[in-house]
């Protein structure tokens, strides 16, 4: 006999302090309707949670699993695979700096150094005031504007170190 209940209904995972917003749950169900099987809405469901909370806390995993009718292990597997699903708190703004070949050849190292100096953090870190998180990203498809980066939904490039003070200032 198993001493613990299997993780199929989410009851063995902590859900303390997390409630799925009814509007988010409805959005997940609508997404699920676009596919032959509801699991396909898994990535979108994680993004829905992330849009509201900034990141995906552990307790959201069983909640999503319940809505989609799949095991929490499947949701967890997806949540840990994709680089744009954040599993720890991040800053209010996400900086994705392109470290792929074209940007590497046009000044990525200098851009990263300038960003690190101005923000006081390295890749994978968040500023102490929770304003920015700095992350590397695969080729942003803006190679004719290298070195390139994104802040939240916007792409910038070519970015010179001198552009950064004004640019960062516009994200409060």
């Amino acid at each position, binding site marked *: 006999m198993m001493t613990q209940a299997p993780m199929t209904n989410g009851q063995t995972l902590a859900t303390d302090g997390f409630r799925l917003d009814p509007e988010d749950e409805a959005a997940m169900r609508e997404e699920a309707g676009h596919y032959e099987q509801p699991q396909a809405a898994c990535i979108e469901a994680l993004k829905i949670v992330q849009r509201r909370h900034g990141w995906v806390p552990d307790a959201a995993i069983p909640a999503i699993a319940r809505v989609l009718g799949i095991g929490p292990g499947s949701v967890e597997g997806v949540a840990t695979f994709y680089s744009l699903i954040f599993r720890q708190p991040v800053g209010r703004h996400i900086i994705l700096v392109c470290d792929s070949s074209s940007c590497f050849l*046009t000044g990525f190292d200098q851009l990263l150094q300038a960003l690190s100096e101005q923000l006081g953090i390295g890749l994978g870190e968040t500023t102490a005031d929770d304003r920015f998180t700095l992350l590397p990203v695969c*080729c942003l*498809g803006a190679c004719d504007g290298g070195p390139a980066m994104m802040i939240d939904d916007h792409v910038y490039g070519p970015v010179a170190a001198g552009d950064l003070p004004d640019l960062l200032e516009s994200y409060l």
Partner: protein
Amino acid sequence: MNSQRQSPVYRSRLLQSASERTPETHPLTWRLRDDGQVVDLKEYEAKDGYLAVRQALNAHDPQAVIATMKEANIRGRGGAGFSAGLKWSLTMQGDDMPRGYIVCNADEMEPGTFKDRLLMEQQPHLLIEGMILAAFANNARYGYIFLRGEYVESARVLADALAEARDAGWLGADIAGSGFDFDMALHTGAGRYICGEETALLNSLEGGRANPRAKPPFPGQSGAWGKPTVVNNVETLCNVPAVILGGAEWYQGLSGGRTEDGGTKLYGASGLVNRPGLWELPIGTSGREILELASGLRDNRQLKAWLPGGASTGFLLPEHLDLPLDFDTVGKEGSRLGTGLITVVTEDQSMVALMRNLEEFFARESCGWCTPCRDGLPWTVKLLSALEHGEGESGDIELLDKLAADCGPGLTFCAHAPGAAMPLETALKHFRHEFEQGIGVKQPMTINEE
């Protein structure tokens, strides 16, 4: 003092003005506006948009569409170069077969590649029309545009265009009075280069981890949810409407006898060129012609090497600049055309540092499914980092040779590892002396010192 400095907002653009582009010569881009604004439904319809759908669907002959595509010889513009018409002819169809899916691979993430972004951000209806035609030819019930998560602007434009197309009756039941039903949705990803591999893409679409699937069965036999599924790149699908309207012979002729491949190609150049950019040119245009359009290299630098079509293609040399950039010619030189967007490396740039950067990318983006890729690629990064800092040991270069060979075609589930191996093998072949200079004076440690 620099309050007048412009915010460096990036805008996707084609470096050819409308006066240079005609329907007869630029099937992909002739409708694009010089102001870079989206070609909306009204403007698209006024420029012969959805005419190919109206004609083809009302002719009620999907096999004729496939035959035209085969004859036009459009080779996959995502980089693999497989004939789109041949792929379509292998899709399982029949009375005992369920209707399947058409999936657009819009996961553009190949380093050095920025072409599909332009097509989606400025001309979304061309892609939608291409997908309707693909669905008709392959008897697909539903379509998905699998778009990378970072393409926020593309997502916004495509969502608007899908709503416009649906309202106008180009999607839904009985399209253009033909009796053909088809609809589609936008599916956005959440990072990871491997999603661009077509079977990993299907696993991701189904809501799983993006590990590749074993082939066979091919997606055309059993793809999304086990149904026949066609996966095509954005640029490939955007060629379909013009091929249907203009015919295979016209399309073939666009390459102007440069090559056996047909049509035009979005070519581009990035790296330290004066005018990095994107152009629609006859397929088979040479690297030299593209670098001339890019106004040469910055500050009179000299060309050392170039990648013809992304990180997973092999390095070519200045002596290869006059070759026609088509799939077969580039393949014969030990590289691949890939996506056709050139990355330039100049004499003052270190091949060892660049290789370290490329392998860091491939190692990070490996899905971890196959051992040579999961374990071999981080090992190459370690060796390349040591060589970059003059701390390599004798035998390191031979070890890199072996690690690259172990990632070769057929040794892993998908093309990620072979893609990582090709630039490494060609860099080691053409620039071995640069790697040898990274071997330090420090002798390798041995276990039996005395």
